[in-house]
Structures are given as C-alpha cells and as structure tokens.
C-alpha cells in the first residue's frame, strides 16, 4: 500500500490540488468563503492578492479593451509565479480539463486504443497557431475570442457557477483524447497550454534527468504527455528544458531506477544546455 502511494505520489498530489482549488472556488460562490474568489480567468486571494490569466488579458487587449490596474497587477503576479515554477504547472496541477484528458488516456491504454495512433496525427504546433488566430479574431470581433469557446473556461465556470450544456464540450474532449489522439486537446491544440509554455520557458523549477541511472525501459516515453521533450533520455544528463513539460511528474513515478528528479536549475545552466 505504501509502495502504491509512493508510486503515485505526484498523481495523488495533483488530483488533491486540482480538487482542492475547485472546492475553494466553489465554496466562495456557494457559501461565501473568502480564501479565493472568482475563477481561473481572474480571482482574488484573501481579498487582496489579485490573479489574472495573462492569455485572456492579452486577448482583451487585442480586442481594444482598456485594462484596469487590478487586472494588470493580477497578470504580473501570475507571470512572476509561472516564471519561477513553470507556466504549464497550471496544466497538470490546477486545470480541471487535465483530469478529463488523463482519464481518457488511461482508458485509451486499458482498451488498447493507442495502437491506432498512426491513423491520424496532429502537429503539436497547432496550439501556437491557435494563439495567433485567437488574437486576430479578438481584434476583428472586439472580444476575447478563445475565452468564448474555451473548454477550460467552460469546465471551471461550470464547476463553480453551473454548466448548462457546457459539459458537451468536455465529453467531446474526452472522446477526442480517448479515440482519436493521445493527449489530443492538452498536448496539441489548447492555446492556453501553448501560452503557458511560452511564459514558463525559462522557469527555475525543472525535472532533471540522470542518464547514468537510465535503464532504457522507455517507461517515461509511455506516460509523458509531451514526449518530444524527452529527447535527452538515456543519452545526456540534463534538465528537461523543453517548454512543453507540464511538471506532472509522471516520468518520475514511472521510472523504476529514479532517473528523474525535480530540481531548481539556474537560468545560466539552462541556456548552456
């Protein structure tokens, strides 16, 4: 049992954080708790620390909105935090869609569906294109374009304030990730993930690989949602600096010889490679 808990320590931690954050938001609306109010677009911690999603605010800016000081401060706080621990930390530790996509991937493996992967493949760069298109559409329509269709927004607002028919989006993501493309939404299309990747490119907290310990089991490749970042595995000991890393810790859990660990890596070291 202890071994099981240890083997899934990151998964348990992440699920706990994801649910805990959503419970806090939900309680703020339903019972008037004041620990964190709002939602993942913009919120306030303890009534005075503002948080705002930089991607949404950038879209609003392209739409022509004057950004208020509260929101700008919130953006700075988020940029600071993501700059240190990594932007895609959000994806695996906070975002509720992550639970859907990982559940889909679990069943994809259990049902042996991943062997059909070659039928249709999507580029992982789609997300950056979606960022560009969303900013252009925001400019044309004077509205935060991605925010209007964002499954992340639908999911967290749904949990906090009620879903409507929004759950159909989440079912669509589940089916897409289950049947069509492994980590299809989060790993290929989601522009928020792409945006957070850019913000956290040089974050200080990184997963570090020790190639001396690598047993070439390829277990990490099997679990990693962003396999392109594992290019050094078994060959070089270095930090995983690929911006796609969502800090989910699945590689650490999967490795039987502990060839991965989390560490603080200085900017100079990262740039040297």
């Amino acid at each position: 049992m202890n071994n099981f808990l240890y083997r899934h320590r990151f998964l348990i931690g992440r699920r706990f954080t994801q649910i805990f954050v959503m419970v806090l938001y939900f309680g703020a609306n339903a019972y008037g708790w004041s620990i964190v109010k709002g939602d993942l677009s913009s919120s306030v911690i303890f009534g005075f620390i503002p948080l705002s999603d930089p991607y949404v605010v950038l879209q609003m800016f392209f739409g022509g909105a004057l950004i208020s000081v509260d929101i700008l401060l919130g953006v700075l706080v988020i940029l600071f935090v993501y700059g240190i621990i990594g932007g895609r930390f959000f994806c695996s530790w906070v975002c509720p869609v992550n639970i859907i996509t990982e559940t889909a991937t679990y069943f994809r493996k259990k049902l042996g569906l991943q062997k059909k992967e070659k039928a249709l493949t999507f580029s992982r760069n789609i997300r950056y294109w979606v960022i560009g298109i969303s900013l252009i559409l925001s400019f044309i329509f004077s509205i935060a374009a991605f925010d209007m269709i964002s499954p992340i927004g639908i999911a967290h607002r749904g949990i906090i304030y009620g879903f409507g028919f929004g759950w159909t989006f989440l079912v669509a993501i589940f089916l897409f990730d289950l049947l069509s493309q492994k980590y299809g939404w989060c790993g290929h299309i989601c522009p928020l993930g792409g945006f957070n990747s850019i913000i956290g490119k040089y974050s200080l907290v990184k997963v570090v690989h020790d190639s001396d310990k690598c047993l070439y089991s390829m277990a990490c490749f099997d679990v990693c949602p962003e396999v392109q970042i594992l290019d050094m595995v078994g060959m070089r000991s270095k930090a995983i600096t690929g911006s796609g890393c969502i800090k989910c810790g699945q590689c650490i859990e999967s490795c039987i010889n502990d060839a991965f660990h989390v560490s603080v890596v200085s900017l100079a070291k990262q740039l040297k490679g």
Partner: protein
Amino acid sequence: MDKLSNPKRRSFLQNILQGIGYSAFGVIAWSAYLSQSQANNLILRPPGAINEKDFVLKCIRCGMCVAACPFDVLKLATISDEISIGTPYFEPRKEACHLCPDAPCTSTCPTDTLDLNLISKDSKLDINSARMGLATINTKTCLAYLGLQCTMCIRACPLADTAIVLKNERNPRTDMHAFLKPVVDPDYCTGCGMCEHACPTKVASIKVLPLAISQGDRGSYYVVGWKKEDEQRLEHGPAEIKVERTKRNEKSALDNVNDVDGILKGLYDE
C-alpha cells in the same frame, strides 16, 4: 539552385498552405459563433454595467459579481443561454435586483465593466441612479388598465410613487369606480425588475427591457422652446443645430407672425 524548384522551400510553403486549408473550417465556425454571441441585446446586466458591446469585451468572466450577489439574483451565462458565455445577467421574472445600497456586485468587479461611477451621484454611491433597463407596460393585458384594483407593481417598486405612479381615471363602464393605472417614469426607473417579478398576469404585463431597446431618443433637432436651457441651445448649442438665416427668418419668429405684410410680401417675392 533555382528558387522555385528548391524542394525544401516548396514543401515548407505547401505545409503552410495545407495548414491554412485545415484551419479555414475552424476559423469560420469560430467567427460565426463569435458574431452570434454578440448579437443578443435583450439581456439585463447588473447595476453599473457599461454598454453591451464594450461589456462582452471588457468582462473577464470571473463571476465575482455573481458570487457577491446576496440574493442569488445574478447568474453567469452558460453556453446554452444564448448570452455571451460567462457574463453575468439576471431575469426579473425569476428573481429581480434588490438594489442593495452598497452594490456588492458592482464594487467587486475587477475590470470596471461594472462601473461604480455609473451608479454614483456627486461621487457618492447612489444605487437608485442605476439604469439597468426600463419597465414598460402592456396596457392591453395589465389588470389595472382593465379596471381591476391590482397595484402589485407599485407595491413591489422600491421607488414607488416616483418610478411608478398611479394615475387615477374615471371608469366610464361602472361610473362609480376609478382606474388606478400604473405609469412608469423613465427618469426614475432603475430597471430592477421588482414590478415584473410581482406582476400577477400569466405573462408579466410590465416588463423590464434593456435601455438600448426601450429608450427613445428625440435627437437634438427638437428644441423645447418653453424651457430656457433648451432654448439657449439655439444660440450657442451643439454644432448640429444650425439655424440658417434667410430672408424669411432674419427677424424673430414672433416678429414675423405679427408682420402680416412682411409675410405676404415674402410670399410674393418667391
């Protein structure tokens, strides 16, 4: 090597064109949804809301106003509400705005989409200066206009006798009763919707409509001559009011009326 036959360059360009082809479908569907979501103007927003077009842009969809509403009047639009997703709104027939004097919804807004300045008078918060909409009465279905004594709307109105007043009229049918007809004064109606919520007819006979729909606008062409300030607009008013001086109106209107000969002469001249 010839530029056109460079295979790398060719495949790069082809990849980009392919991407554009794929994304065309998505972008068109996305654009259609975006323009649709801005089309609805029948929505009632919380007090202090800026105009609808700026509202859907500036609102960051955090829902803090909804959480702040102590009476659970405000709701956050979901994808099935035909309202710009994630924005706050209320439906008076279900639950009307209670006009909290401290406006917790407006004051919690981080983006000033709900602007305290719009519900302030002399830089002091005055919730009664909110203009969320305007109550309009269908006199064909209103019970009071039928001759029954109803008064539900005026009893519910937080600004009774100012925003809604009762007009007494003789009822010629019975010749011994009075009509007590409710009339809305647009100068005072906040659009809170208490009247619509209280109206006893099957479908409310008094309804709050957003100002963009319910409010008329005279334009600047009509000058109310018996009001001094309005009359002054003729002298040094906005640019669109211009009185062209011709032979006929070189004198004041009053002089012209009294000068019968002048009028006749003017007519003959033309």
